[in-house]
């Protein structure tokens, strides 16, 4: 039996890392001025395609690459529709969500009904590669060690991606150009930045990152295909809210994941806390679990309100978000 607090911290990370992938992926896309509401569907496609490729080759590396490519292709579709063909971004994003989740069921059902059935994870090399391993020394730190340094490789990859993305936005020239496009594509265009190329590249990479989050859910939070139960299960939508919470900063996305994760975990672990500390925390079980599910969104609302009330515009929201860029309109 693990110490209840260690377990709490551990679960915050294990069950909420997909939010970090979804959020950082979406931030990259939104920084280019595009609003992609297709996170849920993109994650679903990355999840199911990556999982199947991984199961076929029994390799986590292949699973990650294929997942990234598959969801990247969804990003390519989104870019083609919204950047080249100038379709409405909201509608396209929603269509991708519907399409992606249906694609997940389509492939999953077909495979489960086939003779060989859905490929099982347990006992495979893929399972071993994706499961938690302990980082020497660090994982021995009391209390935090187990919670922070004994996870699957995809957990660390998610954190590394978030940090690299933050550096990319802040410290590099392409990152600066990308942010310029998000704020004012016309101005960026006049300075010789290839708006369409930048949008395409970053939408594809952002979608690929989301797909990895979906793959993580397949490998570490699901593994069996259950007829009426999608792995992604709303995490994509929460990610979109988390982008606002994080104020379009990948670094704050890390913090936001922990905050959302804290309430997500509290929703489940409130009973365990109340059981371990009946006198001080016994009241936790009296609160309906749906209140905990609602809390992160209430906090997001408050963040939105306070950021729009402040006199200086400190918001990280790209000014041109959601609007397609017509060069002729410039």
């Amino acid at each position, binding site marked *: 039996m693990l110490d209840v607090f260690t377990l709490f911290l551990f679960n915050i990370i294990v069950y909420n890392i997909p939010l970090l992938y979804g959020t950082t992926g979406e931030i990259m896309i939104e920084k280019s001025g595009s609003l992609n509401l297709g996170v849920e569907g993109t994650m679903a496609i990355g999840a199911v395609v990556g999982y199947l490729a991984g199961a076929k080759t029994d390799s986590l590396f292949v699973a990650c690459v294929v997942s990234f490519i598959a969801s990247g292709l969804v990003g390519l579709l989104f870019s083609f529709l919204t950047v080249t063909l100038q379709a409405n971004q909201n509608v396209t994003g929603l269509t991708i969500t519907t399409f992606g989740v249906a694609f997940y069921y389509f492939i999953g059902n077909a495979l489960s009904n086939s003779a060989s059935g859905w490929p099982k994870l347990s006992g495979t090399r893929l399972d071993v590669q994706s499961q938690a391993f302990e980082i020497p020394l660090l994982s021995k730190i009391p209390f935090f060690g187990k919670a922070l340094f004994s996870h699957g490789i995809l957990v660390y990859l998610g954190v590394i991606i978030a940090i690299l993305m933050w550096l990319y936005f802040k410290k590099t020239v392409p990152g600066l150009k990308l942010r310029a496009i998000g704020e004012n594509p016309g101005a960026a265009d006049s300075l010789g930045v290839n708006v369409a190329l930048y949008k395409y590249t970053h939408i594809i990479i952002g979608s690929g990152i989301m797909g990895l989050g979906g793959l993580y859910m397949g490998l570490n939070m699901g593994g069996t295909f259950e007829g009426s139960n999608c792995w992604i299960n709303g995490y994509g939508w929460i990610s979109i809210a988390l982008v606002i919470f994080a104020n379009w900063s990948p670094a704050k996305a890390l913090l936001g994941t922990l905050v959302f994760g804290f309430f997500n975990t509290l929703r489940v*672990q409130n009973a365990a806390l109340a059981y371990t500390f009946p006198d001080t925390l016994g009241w936790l079980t009296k609160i309906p679990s749906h209140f905990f599910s609602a809390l992160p969104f209430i906090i997001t609302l408050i963040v939105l309100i306070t950021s729009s009330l402040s006199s200086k515009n400190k918001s990280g929201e790209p000014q041109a978000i959601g609007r397609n860029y017509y060069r002729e309109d410039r």
Partner: protein
Amino acid sequence: MKKLISMVVAAALAVTSVFALAGCSSANGGNGGGSKASFKVGAIYINSQNDTSGYTYAHHKGVTEGMKKVGLDPAKDLFIVDNVPEDDEKVKQAIDQLAGNGCNIIFGISFGYINAFEEKAKEYPDIIFSHATGYLSNDKNFNNYFGRIYQARYLAGIAAGYKSLALGNNNIGYVSAWGTEYAETCSGINAFAMGCMAVNPDAKVSVYEISTWGDQQLERQAAETLIDTYGCCVIAQHCDSSQPQIVANEKGVFGCGYNSDMTTEAPAAHLTAPIWNWDVYYATAMKAAMEDPANFMTKVGIYYEGLNAGLVDISPLSSNCEPETKEAVELAKNLMKNGEWDVFSGVKLSFSGSAGSVAVEKTNAALVTNDGAEIVAAGGPSVEDGVITGSMNYYVEGVTQVN
């Protein structure tokens, strides 16, 4: 021009995904031609007919197998409207569609279809309406059907009880969609706990309520909490996915699944699972409706069967079960099959002896809730069926809900 192309592509994408979601409702239908001689079956599902596990899957399997039993061809004689939410208007539309297809009997599998079924049964007096899990009916062409799944859960409880005895750990966990809010979940938890205690009188069942029928991540975390914090050695479940069993497998404890033999998902953990054989009912209902539709309500009527009819059962005991389990389960099963004893009565079973000589003993003992209220006096008869299906809202002794 660009706009035009984009609209076409977006429309094509939307249409494709709508079709994929709807699961091609008409795939099994086609145009029936409406000849009077053939018998046609209609079914309304809450999820997709292409599901590979879960509630709709179990019913769809039951309908198709039941049809084969009575000589009907599911590819030709079955009309399905699936993904129908519990919304009166949508259900009515689905019924109209099936009536238009010429269906002679229409099954609805979800509780919330109840009002639409009652209303439409009046509108189409020549069609038989059959509604699962509900409580409404009329005396001519509208019945409801359900099964004594609690009997199967009692048997699973016996398997769990032996496991906890062998491990010397009295803590048994139960991941449940709902707690005392629904009689269906509540009676299942109680029956399972009574099965555990018939073997291990000191067994304690801790219930974790996830407040939804299915959510893989919640089911996983609930099972983890029950194992890590409450030290449970067996995890039973009443929820959609097999995640609680998979977690039990990962953590080296044991479990009882639900709806299907989850030994495939959790080979080292799974003991046995309460299962439904819906084809038993569907074959009975279709046969009666084919042969003598006018007397459907006297021949089939309100259908509530259990182990005796084979409507419910447990999946084959896995090799993870303790050696005494098989005999004890057979003993209890026979008592219930013969109608000599039932779970929620003033008589308790207790099992003793080792493998090869397991004996069952009946003792008079009151059925008492976990806060001390007496439901059935010692030696008294079983509670009414209406209580088990509709109004049971208490846990029996030995059960606690943790959240």
